């Protein structure tokens, strides 16, 4: 496999993780356009740990993710008070604050705006990335068939009613935010150790917006939607080489068209009807 194809596959893996990181809070009805910020936190923290403290990769990734997750929880609490566009803007603001933070602070460790070079000498193997992808896909698979997943769906559909039937909204929403942040943080760490170079400019608003687009376009009601969206956005440009510089226009038009034709994205929940019935029925058939 050529190194170009390897890069492509790595990008795909990381983008899938990022899509999942947006999907998680979105499944409880919270739109976050700031996950690039959590990605940045994961990237920088894990890079600092491996480069300056010489920790092995796995704990660095996890710690990076955890710190991102903790910040996700911290942001998640005030986020409870905000809805829709307000929440989106607050998360956007947060993402930009994080980016600015890494531009101006800790620069002796990270190189600030000039970028963090030399994160290790060899890029990590692609199986690191896809190992995490497999883990999180499994995680969401079980989550979507569980009662917690059901509670998330309810919260997404109608928060007020959910609270009135006993769902612990606060716990659910804040956790979803935190878990999403964790996933983005891990993705950031993987990115840093594959490309061996990061700079704050990478983790900007448009990155956050792209992640959101993966989920929206692919289908926001199931975690597979984000996977499909990430796949399309990562791989389709390869097939559209003939468009050269007009690929952006193509995507813009595709987005506009899709919103008119099929606003909930390509994959709907109907297509993947999760059966809550199957594993438990002993004896007689329904």
């Amino acid at each position, binding site marked *: 496999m050529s190194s170009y194809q390897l890069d492509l596959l790595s990008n795909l893996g990381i983008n899938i993780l990022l899509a999942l990181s947006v999907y998680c809070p979105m499944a409880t009805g919270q739109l976050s356009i700031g996950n690039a910020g959590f990605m940045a936190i994961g990237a920088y923290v894990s890079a600092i740990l491996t480069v300056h403290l010489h920790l092995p990769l796995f704990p660095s990734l996890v710690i990076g993710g955890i710190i991102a997750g903790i910040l996700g929880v911290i942001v998640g609490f005030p986020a409870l008070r905000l809805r829709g566009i307000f929440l989106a803007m607050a998360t956007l603001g947060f993402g930009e604050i994080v980016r600015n933070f890494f531009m101006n602070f800790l620069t002796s460790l990270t190189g600030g705006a000039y970028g963090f070079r030399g994160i290790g000498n060899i890029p990590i193997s692609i199986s690191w990335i896809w190992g995490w992808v497999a883990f999180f896909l499994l995680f969401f698979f*079980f989550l979507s068939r569980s*009662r917690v997943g059901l509670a998330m769906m*309810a919260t997404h*559909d*109608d928060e007020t009613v959910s*609270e009135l039937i006993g*769902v612990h909204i606060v716990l659910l929403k804040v956790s979803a935010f935190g878990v999403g942040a964790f996933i983005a943080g891990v993705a950031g760490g993987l990115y840093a150790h594959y490309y061996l170079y990061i700079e704050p400019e990478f983790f900007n608003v448009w990155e956050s917006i792209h992640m959101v687009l993966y989920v929206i376009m692919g289908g926001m009601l199931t975690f597979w939607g984000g996977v499909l969206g990430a796949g399309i956005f990562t791989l389709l440009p390869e097939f559209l080489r003939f468009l050269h510089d007009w690929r952006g226009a193509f995507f813009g038009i595709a987005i506009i068209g899709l919103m008119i034709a099929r606003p909930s994205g390509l994959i709907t*929940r109907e297509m993947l009807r999760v059966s*809550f019935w199957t594993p438990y029925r002993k004896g007689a058939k329904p």
Partner: protein
Amino acid sequence: MKEPPLLALNRVSKTFGGLLAVNDLSLEVSKGYIYGLIGPNGAGKTTVFNLITGVYPCSSGSIHLKDVELTTLKSYRIARLGISRTFQTIRLFPNMTTWEHVLIGQNFLSRPRLGGILPLQRAEEFTLREQAEETLKVLGLWEMKERRAVTLPYGSQRKVEIARALAARPKLLLLDEPTAGMNARETEDVLNALAKIHDFGVTILVIEHDMRVVMGLCDHIFVLNFGQKIAEGTPSEIRKNEEVLEAYLGQEE
């Protein structure tokens, strides 16, 4: 004999801005009976439900479930203590099936390990699902369990809402105009369902506009007007009550 009533409102008031929606309201609900809450439009009936279930805080007064004070609790805790409700306009989850509605209604009863992500408690889960199945069958919704609830006919949707409220076997069921917008057959369907629910031992408090339903169904009726209780009693007492007639006739312009 002095067992605390199932639900007690003690001098409850609620103001919104300058508007006094509920005014010094006191009432008691005893276990096992069916109560009606009636009154002209705007009398504050739904507000009372919202106060009981914690949607709004009371401006003054207190609400108790047996000996537990509800006034300061958040909605999800109140629900977990055993109070369920339906809504004036049917509020189902647009993306869920009938079956899923009942499951989510009983969600807080399950005590999963590992956050419920891995299916670990087979026995407990099995019991819950049997209970869910029973709920649907009692309400005649079993055949539609896999259908997305919002695609069902109106009367069935209302029953799904009731099924969701019943899923956790609440002590007290609050129904907000359950027969609104229904034809005679649908109404009867719902009433039969309510009778069966009553047999389960669930205490019911119903807001209704349809007088025949109220008079036929309820053991005891509270009448509200302008946020105050103007009368209470058995159906026959209420039917003859001067003030009540006036309050309603006043509406009939």
